[in-house]
């Protein structure tokens, strides 16, 4: 049995204590080896608009099973619903829009594969939806229009159909009142008929339209450092090495590379966490990981 080594990523911790890379099992690596890479910023990834791009390269086996040498498993953080995406090797692949994952699992299915995978998180421009609908929804119809003089709020049911004819699903479908976004509804695969209640705050006559919002490749900007995971195969064993760490805005690397620890200090109106480097005394402010509140079930 050849020597197996694991270095780099396995020793690095996200600021929520989650290892950003982990080798499951007893350490024996071989076919169907999985490298679990947690998301970018101390994670989990929770922004449904984030995409991920993979750049596999290296020597791939040829033949009938050249497909499926690598698969990527995305794990929904809430429902536990896993989905597989297969790469044919040597290319670039985008996971579909609406990526919502707590970790990404790269699985090598071929014992002879010598593969270097660069994983790049891609973020759409903040605040710039820039609709690039390639298949605009059918013109909507409006029903049950009503104006409430007391609350100075008008509402109307907007009914429309949308069938996606493009490779990627839209992020959402947005109803616009006189060209101004009024309400959005998430796109659901397989659903073509939508009814949504739009609200306006000025009495008048409105022209409602519907747009399918979608990001194109050119609109996506990469804001994270690429992480390379090298999987080098020698039948039947593989070694896994990793280098670097995920960094979005530069803050995550501080967590990975310094001797940062300490105690909490409560400070009035402070709305972030501060990391202290014990060696240099430098501090870094990082976000509190996605605070949330949840009410009881209704009714």
């Amino acid at each position, binding site marked *: 049995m050849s020597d197996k080594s694991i270095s780099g990523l396995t020793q690095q911790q996200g600021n929520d204590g989650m290892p950003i890379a982990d080798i499951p099992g007893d350490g024996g690596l071989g076919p169907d080896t999985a490298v679990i890479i947690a998301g970018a910023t101390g994670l989990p990834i929770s922004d449904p608009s984030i995409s991920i791009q993979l750049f596999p390269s290296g020597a791939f086996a040829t033949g009938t099973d050249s497909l499926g040498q690598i698969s990527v498993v995305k794990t929904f953080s809430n*429902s536990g619903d896993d989905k597989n995406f297969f790469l044919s090797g040597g290319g670039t692949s985008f996971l579909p829009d609406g990526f919502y994952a707590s970790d990404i699992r790269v699985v090598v299915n071929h014992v002879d594969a010598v593969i270097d995978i660069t994983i790049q998180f891609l973020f759409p421009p903040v605040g710039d939806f820039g609709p690039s609908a390639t298949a605009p929804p059918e013109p909507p119809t409006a029903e049950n229009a009503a104006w409430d003089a007391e609350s100075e709020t008008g509402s109307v049911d907007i009914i429309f159909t949308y069938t996606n004819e493009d490779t990627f699903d839209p992020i959402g479908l947005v109803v616009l009142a006189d060209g101004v976004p009024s309400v959005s509804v998430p796109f659901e695969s397989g659903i073509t008929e939508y009814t949504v209640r739009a609200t306006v705050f000025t009495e008048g006559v409105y022209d409602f339209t519907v747009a399918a919002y979608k990001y194109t490749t050119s609109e996506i900007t990469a804001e994270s450092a690429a992480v390379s995971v090298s999987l080098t195969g020698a039948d039947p064993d593989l070694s896994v090495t990793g280098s670097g760490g995920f960094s979005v805005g530069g803050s995550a690397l501080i967590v990975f590379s310094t001797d940062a620890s300490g105690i909490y200090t409560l400070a009035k109106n402070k709305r972030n966490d501060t990391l202290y480097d014990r060696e240099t005394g430098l501090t870094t402010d990082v*976000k509190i990981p*996605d605070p949330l509140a949840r009410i009881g079930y*209704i009714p």
Partner: protein
Amino acid sequence: MALRKSNSGEGSIYHYGSVRLRALGSGNLRMRLISLSDTKEAIMAPLVLSTATDREPLKTVNFKQQRASLEISTTAIDEYFSIDKIVVYIKPVGSSYPG
């Protein structure tokens, strides 16, 4: 609308149409309705928070479930929210699922 207590927990199916909030803060308030066991969700349009406002905005949603929970959160650094009131507008649309 007001619901009689006897309606609660008897398996009726409701349409969740909108949520009205009295919310202050900074950043984007992200909201979603979640079904029992987190099997279904409806992500709502984010609410842009401000430190002072005279509005109690109504955020619409289209979700049909027997029961649902509202989750509110922020995701960016220095974002925060303070909520005084949450009103979830629902309407019964079915008596129960078969079987």
